[in-house]
């Protein structure tokens, strides 16, 4: 097992690392670095709490519940793609 000494670590970074260490339930710094390295290799997954995910789920449900109202008020042309293209490029 290798040992590293880190010099010149900004206070803000240390604070963030300490927070991550708790959030990711790591007992040692080595364990934290190992988890971070693994995460990076797996296309950077993030860790969220169950409450955050429940809030997102409510958001998805609430957003898709607008389907009726939007579809009633906006039928036929222009299509969404045409409308967005127009707004982005002033076509």
């Amino acid at each position: 097992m290798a040992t590293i000494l880190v010099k010149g670590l900004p206070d803000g970074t240390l604070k963030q690392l300490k927070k991550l260490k708790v959030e990711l339930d790591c007992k040692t710094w080595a364990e934290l670095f190992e988890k971070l390295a693994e995460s990076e290799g797996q296309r950077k997954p993030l860790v969220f709490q169950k409450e955050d995910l429940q809030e997102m789920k409510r958001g998805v449900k609430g957003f898709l519940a607008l389907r009726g109202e939007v579809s009633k008020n906006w039928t036929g042309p222009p299509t969404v793609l045409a409308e967005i293209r127009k707004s982005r490029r002033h076509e």
Partner: protein
Amino acid sequence: MSEQQVKRILTLDSNVFISALKSDEPYSRKCAQIIELVPNRFLLAEPSVVYQEVCGTLARRAGSSAAQAAREQLDRMIDSKLLSTCDKDFCLASYPLCSQFKIYAIDALYLWTAISTRSTFVSLDREDLTEKVESNPQLEIEVYHVSDFPL
């Protein structure tokens, strides 16, 4: 010990959000199905301009109450840690993509969000966006037109 889950990240073009709400769109159902994958399979990473495009378009075409309601749900769906503010630094990082991939300015804001968060990017605009970037070997992220996205 707190409960935690690991997810992949998804960046959706605003046209995906809006099409999910307009039921007579060709890919409306598929767009809704993709959004329904949040948060079980994916978390959303978006540029802040998504608010302007989704809410602005809905306000113009479907009314201000739909726009306001959409804003509230976007707040819930997109965690602040994954919302990129389109400030000067962000725009300066995004605009070179217009030259690199021959894409338009606003499209580059979404693509840069996906690149910087290493997320999967999905759009309805095949002709001017996904077709131009999906097969480019310089791009290290997955890019899909809605119709090609694997559910």
